[in-house]
């Protein structure tokens, strides 16, 4: 995974002793095998039944720490979302937003969008994850499926530069309208922009003096 840039915080692991003995093994990111456990098998079964193209749409299924993540192909995201919302036995009627994550080292899958879904009817939670390449960051908008995704998608565009096709008004939401860049991306430094104030420009903190 990539390193943060900018002047703040420690670089590297932050291990100042050189000992670094607190290493834990990383989780396995391969696709999980059935049975998934909990209600996850049922969700997967029901989705397969309701959505014949399931095997084509779902890239992989990951069960980790008691949570189910469905990695969906972006072309099939909209259909999958509709099925998840409308199928009686699934009924994921609430989407808790979209969260972008930037993995610059994950080639051609740099930008991920993560949708936590909630079914109030069945009291279940799952997560959809979609990845898009940085060079073509287009995703179908899910505002038509869940209207509440409107602002969340604007935030993901603002912070990561993911373009949601079909969004009713994809504009910046937290940053000023004329802001250059997408601040939450890993290649965007923390505190790395010059400050303009009353006509004068003060260089970015990281440019002012070398602390390292």
């Amino acid at each position: 995974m990539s390193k943060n840039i900018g002047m703040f915080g420690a670089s590297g692991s932050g291990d100042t002793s050189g000992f670094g003995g607190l290493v834990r093994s990383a989780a396995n990111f391969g696709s999980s095998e059935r049975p998934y456990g909990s209600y996850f098998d049922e969700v997967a079964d029901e989705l397969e039944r309701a959505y014949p193209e399931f095997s084509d749409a779902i890239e992989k299924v990951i069960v980790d720490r008691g949570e189910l993540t469905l990695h969906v192909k972006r072309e099939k995201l909209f259909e999958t979302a509709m099925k998840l919302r409308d199928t009686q036995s699934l009924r994921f009627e609430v989407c808790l937003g979209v969260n972008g994550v930037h993995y610059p080292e994950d080639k051609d899958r740099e930008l991920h969008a993560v949708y936590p879904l909630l079914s109030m009817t069945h009291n279940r939670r799952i997560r959809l994850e979609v990845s898009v390449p940085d060079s073509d960051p287009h995703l179908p908008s899910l505002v038509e499926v869940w209207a509440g995704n409107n602002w969340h998608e604007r935030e993901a565009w603002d912070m990561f530069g993911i373009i949601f096709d079909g969004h009713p008004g994809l504009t910046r939401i937290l940053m000023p309208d004329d802001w250059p860049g997408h601040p939450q991306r890993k290649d965007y430094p923390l505190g790395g922009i010059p400050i303009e104030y009353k006509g004068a420009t003060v260089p970015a903190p990281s440019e002012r003096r070398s602390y390292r």
Partner: protein
Amino acid sequence: MTLHDAYASASETTEGRVYSVTGGDWDSLVTEIGQTKEERVVVNMGPQHPSTHGVLRLVLELEGETITEARAGIGYLHTGIEKNTEYRTWTQGVTFVTRMDYLAPIFNETAYCLGVEKLLGITNDIPERASQIRVLMMELNRISSHMVALGTGALELGALSPMIFAFREREKVLDVFEMVSGLRMNMAYVRPGGVAQDLPKGAVAKIRETVKELRHNFKDNEKLLVGNTIWMMRTKGIGYLDLAGCTTLGITGPVLRSAGMPWDLRKTDPYCGYENYEFDVITTDTCDVYGRFLIRMQELEQSLRIIEQACDKLDKSEGQPVMVADKKIAWPSQLSVGSDGMGNSLEHIREIMGTSMESLIHHFKLVTEGFRVPAGQVYAAVESPRGETGVHLVSDGGTRPYRVHFREPSFNNLQATSAMAEGGMIADVIGAVASIDPVMGGVDR
């Protein structure tokens, strides 16, 4: 008559004539607008407006006094907290996230810590007493937050006295926070693995006393507002949003419960041992501002019930640990108040500085570098006063978060402004927004 104020003169733009108002020129403004043929007026309410609950900007399109379109402009309080956490250890993250929704800091902290604990796989190792303290603090925080919601909500609709009473009660809760954590707001008290320090001596007795006082004093506001004709005329049938609207907009919290849905994560998906407490989920079926107001009023009593039960449990768990036993995660020392303020306890300083080199190394490593969190992602959620505060955490296996995202209920629920306000009167938009109870620190993060 035309305006001659150098700072607030009218000017022509491509969209139409723009009027700036500074406050003392209403008469001339009304005269001038009356002379134009334009029926449609666009009013910018906020971001510096006393009734917009902080730096919220509402763009209202009016025909007469009826709102035809309402849009909310946010971002004025964006502080980049999520980005900042990526540059600090997992423990330091608490100090950042507590500042998001500044009226509900304990909820931000708890949601974040539950997420970190889930990533670490230590959810079941959190000591009971730590969970009890978390529940106690969360419910106290719910009261202080609801007090601001009720007080400012009433104030914005022109009722001044409820605000005085509400802030009087809130002070009492903040006093408890100060006694327990040393801070009245932004406590960074809940930490991954437990809480920063145990309750001080006599805290439970003091809290019991406070509960008694609060229960008595809540009646003041109840008498002022519940059933008050003027209050009901300003709130009944206002800001209507039914269940279908709530679900598609992802609305949670009191707004959802005002549509009759008994959805409360404390019941449906218990965390921190909420399944061991007796309380009711309050709902109304009016879908309006008055219903949301009633829900908040009654949730105060439910919170008091939970606090009392938590006090009983805390009496029994006296002396038990409040931090996870795993020394590779637990903060090495308990905090205590010394002559120079709050800091590491004196015994701990003596140990690391005087007797044990290994303790010093351990302390230094854990405090400067922090613990490693296995790679993966989790979503953890708590029922905050405003709805579901969810946190999505991604770890790359390092000592700092790879990504921290807060699903803020204020951010999400504020989207309902348009649905609630359009078609209504301009005066009612204030009530509608107040009933959502957005906290801009949480909205903008």
